[in-house]
């Protein structure tokens, strides 16, 4: 059994005056010890609800979840001793200083006054928060608050760290700073489950990506596995003249695993292929033989965007409106 194991989680909400929302609809997930797994999905896919069930904030209607063999629903107290959680919004007390926030968390973990103070000092050094140490959090930037919040999740050096959209709403510089911190933690061997709606973030940070949509995990694997799961690579030709389009389309169709896609100006044609390098060589030979002039010829691996589109039938970042309509 994996370190974190969720089986068939179902959670429904009934918002006032609205139909029942199935936030989790039979979600299953496995996270091996010492790995970083990203839950990737659009807004409303069930990422936050999954984290809430696993961190004892919300009880699932049905299904089971365990961390290190401990049942999340039955033994919440034991779970809370081994987890660290940093939420979507920095949950820090604005009126307390950075130090007071961390010290308070340490004391609530029952570390004792002395150890709590020492740990708070240590984390302030580690997270480069000296500026926030003795001033109330109120008035600090979003990035700084997130760092304090994340430091709060690490007060006891938890066995597993949950990060719910750790960089949502941060400016690019703070985002990269946050990625740095997470990368350092991971090097230390902490098991991390993070949620994100950014493909790039999942690609950067995670060993394993679970794609989640409508309350279910619809695919799980490494970034490479997910990319190859939707069929090898993609070959794209850009022609000098659209007179050559029919001939070039024929050439591509011969190696393709998908119907050729022709751009609106009829000069760019793309197909998916099973074995990229061989197919590209064959295509270029045929093009040469028939004297078709090219602006550009290229091969690329599918992006996580393509994966997402293929798996869900919609793009990764969709707004709330279309989510409600679907």
């Amino acid at each position: 059994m994996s370190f974190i194991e969720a089986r068939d989680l179902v959670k429904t909400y009934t918002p006032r005056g609205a139909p029942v929302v199935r936030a989790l609809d039979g979600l299953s997930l496995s996270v091996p010890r010492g790995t970083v797994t990203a839950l990737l999905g659009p807004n409303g896919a069930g990422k936050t609800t999954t984290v809430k069930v696993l961190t004892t904030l919300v009880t699932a209607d049905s299904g089971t979840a365990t961390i290190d063999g401990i049942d999340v629903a039955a033994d919440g107290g034991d779970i809370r001793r081994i987890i660290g959680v940093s939420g979507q919004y920095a949950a820090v007390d604005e009126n307390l200083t950075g130090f007071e926030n961390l010290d308070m968390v340490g004391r609530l973990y029952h570390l004792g006054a002395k150890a709590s103070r020492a740990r708070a000092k240590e984390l302030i050094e580690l997270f480069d928060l000296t500026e926030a140490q003795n001033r109330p959090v109120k008035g600090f930037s979003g990035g700084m608050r997130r760092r304090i919040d994340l430091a709060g999740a690490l007060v006891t050096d938890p066995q597993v760290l949950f990060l719910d959209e750790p960089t949502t709403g941060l400016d690019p510089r703070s985002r990269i700073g946050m990625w740095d911190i997470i990368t350092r933690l991971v090097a230390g061997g902490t098991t991390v489950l993070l949620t994100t709606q950014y493909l790039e973030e999942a690609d950067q940070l995670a060993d394993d990506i679970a794609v989640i949509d409508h309350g279910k995990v619809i695919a799980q694997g490494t970034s490479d596995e997910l990319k190859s799961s939707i069929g090898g690579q993609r070959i794209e030709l850009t022609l000098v003249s659209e007179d050559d389009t029919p001939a070039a389309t024929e050439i591509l169709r011969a190696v393709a695993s998908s119907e050729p896609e022709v751009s609106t100006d009829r000069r760019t044609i793309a197909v998916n292929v099973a074995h990229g390098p061989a197919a590209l060589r064959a295509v270029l030979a045929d093009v040469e033989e028939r004297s078709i002039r090219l602006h550009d010829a290229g091969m690329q691996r599918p992006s996580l965007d393509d994966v997402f589109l293929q798996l869900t039938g919609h793009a990764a970042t969709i707004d709330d409106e279309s989510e409600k309509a679907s």
Partner: protein
Amino acid sequence: MTTTTSSIRPVATRPASVGSWFSDGWITTRRNLIKIRRVPDILVFTTLQPIMFVLLFSYVYAGSINIPGSSYTEFIMAGIFAQTVVFGSTYSGSAMAQDLKEGIIDRFRTLPMSPSAVLIGRTNGDLLINAISMIVMIATGLIVGWRIKSSPLEAIAAIALLLLFAYAFSWVMAFIGMSVRSPEVINNVSFLVLFPLTFISNAFVPSGNLPTPLRIFAEYNPVSALVQAARELFGNVPPGAPVGDTWLQQNPIPTVLVGIVALLVVFVPLSIWKFGRVSAR
């Protein structure tokens, strides 16, 4: 994947116990004390408002409202005490709603702490604010001519009764705060509910002077019982003004004591239960 040793030193946590319950309660109380110190608005409002009420009522209305056998200032002090501490307990409602909204409750709920500690800290915060208000009001009252006409023990009992009632009411407000989830709504609703509740009572005029429907309401109003109990214990019951003939008005001290116990018995467990289920949305 193998587990490597963390770069961050592991720290042992102790399991929860009765001792940790006290310590958790103290830590969250301290958090609220720091807030009172850092956000002076609360303290300023808490001290200025009762001063203003004492002065307004005893100077603006004193000439127009005749209380047989007593001065108006002496009559209304118990009313102002009751009104102020009841309003003082509403902080628990807006503060819980605010903490919920900001995800601070989620943070607390993922810690291995006692689930009641946050509520204990919060209601203790209200208790402290109310105690400060009481001191300020008593001092202001004494300056404008209010006198305690009972024994010191009875006066202490009056203060304790007022604070205890407000403390129990804080638990009600905490529950409402977690249910309604919006600090703004809490503030507006408590204003809309508590103003009539404190005014349609015997706090500022003898209930016998009210039109019949309001008089009936006033005589069953729990705030009236609290005011009457405080008035009795401070020795401020005007000899000339009749007390309502309901059991609640005739026996205000037992009424308030039963009310305090009932509120605590219902809302302490209910609030703790609610706390174990709420999460930011």
